[in-house]
């Protein structure tokens, strides 16, 4: 299967926005048409070829619409904006808003991804081999419409407020996360395999946040409910045992925190509140 390959051809020193660039938007276009597509470099309306060398190659994926971006794209925003299908492979780093509002298809990044990864996402999958920034799968400022579906997997660490106002879907961080995972979330699953800097599940009304590693403390607005041997993430069963907390009581919420017992001996105090 053919794929379009975009190679970053110069060092970029102002923000570049590529909201036009998704497999579906490239589909059916000739290379010349693609080269002429609009991209913003700061306040200049440029064409795609001002930023990238563009060619067609025998693809590495079997997707019908495949797009590969090669080079450091960490200053390039909104790659895969509203993409509906096909695949994007980024060999290097990606900038902010990668896969914003995407509803289908897949994005893989070999390096790191910036903040707002998969914000307002509705479907599809994003996989980041390196680290990702803050506000993964979140909503826009002032809006309660965060990630609604799909899967985001980060192999490295993630920043703060991941899954902010999240409504559904799955975020899996194989490393550690900053504070406020699941901020204001109403549904969906966040699984942090290693440590979390704290304030897990702050002001959630629903959904679950699973911490496989150490968490410094539990918010006072959560009540310990039980101890569970394992918890489901999608089809997979993750084994604990876990302390299970309910909250955020301040929001009259019914969200769940699953905190690995072995990694958090300092939370033993909560066992006295367990109804046996």
């Amino acid at each position, binding site marked *: 299967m053919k794929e379009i390959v975009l190679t970053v051809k110069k060092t970029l020193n102002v923000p570049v926005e590529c909201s036009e660039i998704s497999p579906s938007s490239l589909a059916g276009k000739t290379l010349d048409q693609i080269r002429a597509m609009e991209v913003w470099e700061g306040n200049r309306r440029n064409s795609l070829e001002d930023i990238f060398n563009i060619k067609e190659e025998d693809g590495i994926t079997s997707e019908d619409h495949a797009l590969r971006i090669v080079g450091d794209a960490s200053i390039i925003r909104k790659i895969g904006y509203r993409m509906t299908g096909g695949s994007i492979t980024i060999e290097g780093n990606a900038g902010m808003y990668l896969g914003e509002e995407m509803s289908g298809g897949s994005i893989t990044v070999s390096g790191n991804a910036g903040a707002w990864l998969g914000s307002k996402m509705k479907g599809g999958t994003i996989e980041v081999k390196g680290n990702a920034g803050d*506000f993964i799968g979140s909503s826009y400022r002032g809006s309660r419409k965060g990630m609604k579906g799909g899967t985001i997997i980060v192999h490295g660490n993630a920043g*703060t407020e991941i899954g902010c106002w999240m409504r559904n879907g799955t975020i899996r961080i194989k490393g550690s996360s900053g504070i406020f995972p699941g901020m204001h979330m109403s549904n969906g699953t966040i699984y942090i395999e290693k440590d979390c800097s704290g304030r897990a599940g702050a002001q959630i009304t629903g959904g679950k946040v699973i911490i496989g590693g150490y968490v410094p403390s539990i918010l006072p607005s959560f009540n310990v409910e039980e101890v569970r041997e394992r918890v489901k993430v999608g089809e997979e069963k993750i084994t604990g045992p876990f302390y299970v907390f309910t909250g955020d009581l301040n929001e009259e919420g019914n969200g769940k925190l699953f905190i690995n017992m072995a990694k958090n001996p300092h939370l033993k105090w909560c066992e006295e509140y367990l109804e046996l």
Partner: protein
Amino acid sequence: MGQGRSKEIGKLSDEYAKNVGICEFDPEDLKSLQISSGQNVRVTTNHGTVVVKAALSTQAPHRGLIFMPYGPWTSMICDPETHQTGMPSLKGIEAEVTAAPEERILTLRELVAYISGGK
């Protein structure tokens, strides 16, 4: 209030440097570090290092906490990370303090030269 008053007198004034190029300690901490008030200290964080004058906090106790006025000297060691809030991390930063009797507190002009790479 000295910070505010001296700022209005002028940022290049000695008074401003005297009021802002400082680091306030809990008296107990000063004792245990064997640093005396008025002595120069070097404050180092993950983000930079700067020499300022040690001062006694009037608002103790706060063991293990040091306070530096918002200003050019403090900016040398602050964390630019805003976590998508636009607000850098200017409070609650881990820092290492050592006595620096031999070292000099840079003047504002020297600080600017350092920041701008002698532009």
